């Protein structure tokens, strides 16, 4: 089983070093190799199980607005904010200085 680790890391937005990439590739391939065993089972016509509870119907709540979190609390959680907004670096416009807090 070959796995395109770079592509998967891109989907998951993970920056990995060459070393980490190689290591994960090896790990994932051995895990997936083990999982090959699953192909032996006949699951034709078997309904999948997506949840484990006995609640089979979506619970619907009444449309009655309730207070949430105060804005100050929300902005306090954010790594950076500007005025009443949460702020993040923009898409694909590399500036000179790195933005964001650490």
């Amino acid at each position, binding site marked *: 089983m070959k796995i395109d680790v770079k592509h998967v890391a*891109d989907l998951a937005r993970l920056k990995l070093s060459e070393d980490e990439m190689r290591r994960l590739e090896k790990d994932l391939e051995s895990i997936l190799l083990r999982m090959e065993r699953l192909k032996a089972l006949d699951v034709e016509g078997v309904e999948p199980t997506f949840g484990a509870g006995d609640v089979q119907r979506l619970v*619907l*709540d*009444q*449309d009655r*607005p309730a207070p949430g979190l105060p*804005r100050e609390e929300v902005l306090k959680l954010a790594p950076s904010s500007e*005025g009443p907004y949460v702020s993040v670096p*923009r898409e694909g416009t590399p500036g000179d200085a790195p933005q964001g807090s650490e």
Partner: protein
Amino acid sequence: MSETQYELNVGLEVHVELATASKMFCRCKTKFGDPPNTNVCPVCMGLPGALPVANEEAVRLGVMAALALNCRVNLSSRFDRKNYFYPDLPKAYQISQFEEPLAVSGYVELASGKRIRIRRLHLEEDAGKSMHAGDDITTASYSLLDYNRSGVPLAEIVSEPDISSPEEAREYLEKMQRTLRFAGVSDVKMEEGSMRVDCNVSVRRKGEAQMGVPVELKNLSSFRAVTRALAYEYDRQSRLIEQGKRIARETRHWDEDKGVTVSLRAKESSQDYRYFPDPDLPRLELDEAFIESVQRAMPRLPNQVVDFYVNVLGLPKYDAEVLTVDPNLVKFFDRCVELGGEPKPVSNWLMGDIMAYMNAKGLSYDTIPVTPENLVAMLGLIKDGVISGKIAKDVLIKMFETGKAPGDIVKEEGLEQVSDDASLSVIVDSVIAANPEVVAQFKAGKDKVLGFLVGQVMKASKGRANPAKVNIMLREKILS
């Protein structure tokens, strides 16, 4: 290049915000225009550990929308997670319905009788809003995020690629907008973002079996933008085919100012949403009784109203279509008729002076500045000959401005039509005396000049003379 050689195929994806008081999966308010980040909670901010709880009213409105658009409602449907990263998407997945949507197989019927098929209608949650900070859009280095809209319930309505002209696209959207507005499921306001449209456009040579390569259009913020962008794309794509060039499968951005579409991004391979059933939300199970109850609660839809106006009230189809642009207008009209107003005159005044006034003032139909009672009273004054149609136009303006009853305005301003013989006779005599040549021409058989004399009388009476009476009196006085 021959225009008729190519065929346009358009499918539309319409998002409408459902008119609930609280969000799809939390009970934060949905109110448009509140200060940024004031209607948020752990759920719609995607805080660790928070879980979604579905809104009953959103489901009801979704079913209502589906029924209004002739869809078949699935008694069992499911919520899936659509995974992608964007700062306005707090959980980095959107809860949507992918494999098993709420409803399928609907249609919108155009005036021509052509049906644009609706493939599916599903429920999902909206994302927050991101704006760009800084001096201008190209130099800003930050995006600013407001999560008030995050989690607002949406219905996404996907059509088949049945639309074959920009005009059809507009008609489809207008019909859908009216229908959903009448059904009361959404404000459907493009300008407030409660209705949003994406297009999938392809062009092919006529007669070709295979559909062309679809191009997705974004940033269509008005119906006008949709038609202009589609016309532009039809042109661009047919020219490319003509030149033997390939059409790229891509997303293009409509530039409203320049009137062109520009390539935004190729459909990347990384656009893999990894849909899977949301384990936090069991299946949405509905029963027939529920669907029936929604159907029973369905307000009259525009096509039913049009039928009634044409077949029962005898209005021309054109009038009926214009009046059904808005449910409030229909309500107003219906009330007028109920009060005894004659349908056609009511329609004329609504479509004419009232709409013109409201357009000029930029008013919406939920705040029509006259009451049905006053409009009907005014029509009564015209019918009884108390005022002329011309004077009525001025009275109406006064009604708009003061809110007073037309009878009061007429009395206060002394606008009653002058019909009594004595007063008219004085004016007619003075006009005859002042225009001897014209009178002579009329006597010599030039019948047409009488109009001029009537005009002079009207002028002298400041429009208040009863023109029919003036006509008769002039003839009598000159010829006798």
